[in-house]
């Protein structure tokens, strides 16, 4: 376990700003307790400082996970966000997409979100921006990348892809072994 270097933090924040923008401040600067990011075996964990200090007692081989895993760094140094980061992303998301009840299941199986399944979209969403996908009851389902801006979305036919799938709640079942 070690803290992230400056370069790693930069790459990590760049990925996060795509989804939550400047709201990362709320992650760094919390009113209740100071939280920090730590790296264990290429995975980034978001953990409160008191718990982190207690974790120093556990050996490297024995430590599996701590706090919330936000994602991991690949061998080439890129950061890949995991579904376990969803609660924090959903809280501070800049752009949201609400999906109709009939569109929930296709998305949870790993397909892209089609325009016909979209209930609501935040306005002024640009193209290729990180979005968090909710169902009509405001339950976060996953996150992805917008295929078109809100304005262009009206011109697309109903079977066109609106949001590219990146991660969904179904991955807890599908990718059980990859999560740890």
């Amino acid at each position, binding site marked *: 376990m070690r803290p992230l270097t400056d370069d790693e933090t930069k790459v990590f924040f760049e990925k996060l*700003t795509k989804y939550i923008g400047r709201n990362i401040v709320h992650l760094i600067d919390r009113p209740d307790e100071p939280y920090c990011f730590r790296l264990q075996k290429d995975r980034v964990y978001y953990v409160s400082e008191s718990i982190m200090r207690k974790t120093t007692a556990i050996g490297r081989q024995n430590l599996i996970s701590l706090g919330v895993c936000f994602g991991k760094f690949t061998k080439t140094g890129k950061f890949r966000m995991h579904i376990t980061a969803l609660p924090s992303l959903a809280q501070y998301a800049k752009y949201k997409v609400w999906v109709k009840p009939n569109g929930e299941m296709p998305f949870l199986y790993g397909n892209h979100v089609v325009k016909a399944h979209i209930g609501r979209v935040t306005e002024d969403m640009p193209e290729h921006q990180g979005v968090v996908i909710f169902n009509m009851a405001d339950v976060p389902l996953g996150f992805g990348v917008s295929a078109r801006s809100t304005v262009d979305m009206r011109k697309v036919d109903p079977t066109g892809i609106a949001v590219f799938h990146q991660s969904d709640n179904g991955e807890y079942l599908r990718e059980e072994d990859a999560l740890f």
Partner: protein
Amino acid sequence: MDVTGILDEHKNRFKSIQVERLVPVEFDLGLMACFDVNMIDEAQLRASQKARDTYLQELSREGAQLMINELFSLPTTVDEDSVYATLPAIRTVLPREKPAPKEKPMTRWEKFAKIKNIQNKKKSRMVYDEEKAEWRPRFGFKGVNNDDQKPWLIEVPGNADPYDDQYKARREEKKERIDKNARRAQRNFEENLAVEKGMKPRDMRKRELQSALVLSKGSTASMGKFDDKLAGEPKVKGLKRKFDPLVKNSDKEKSNNMEILNRVSKGEAKTTSVVNVRKAQRAINNAKRSKKQEK
């Protein structure tokens, strides 16, 4: 018939070809340029735009007229249908377009020739061949120097094996000479490179060899970790990464993260600043309407 009236009228239609200037204008006819250092009337420049324009046009016309007067006084040559004026040599020194070439360092032979004071004797390209009674180049295609490569007969020298191919031997000797020349040119190049960098050529070669050795040692499947080391080989030091301590001062960590966040957001803002044109237009219209209502 009195044509003077018509001639006068014709002459008055055009402006005078005689131009008066306080300071005589300097000409560089080789560049078709004239340099006029007379003072410009400031009052005219500060006047209305129309007056200023006419004044400047007058100035330019007179300057051009002076130059054309000079051009017409140059000596001329006559071609098929046209008359050309021969411009004199250029007098103004123009600055260099590109930087001056560097001094080339001397090769080994040039240094030796300088010490022994050997002069370079210029040789002609063509040589008269008595046998064929024609002029042939000294070297190159159909050159005199290649005559020994394909003669119809080569005598076997006394000390050679009678079954050796003498033609092949000749070819190989020539190849060796060419390679020797190439090697010497390469050596000159490397020596001059070393001198340029401020090192002795021998030291530079030593350094290159050492770096090549280190690289080749690491080119095995296990990156050279399990290879047997030779006696007396220096240990190669790799980069040691330094990480921050695990439990840092939380304020310092927070401020560090905030700094990085600011840098990242600045970069993001530069690349993705999407303006919603409709919204902006609506805002402008609302502002205008509220201003009108206030009035």
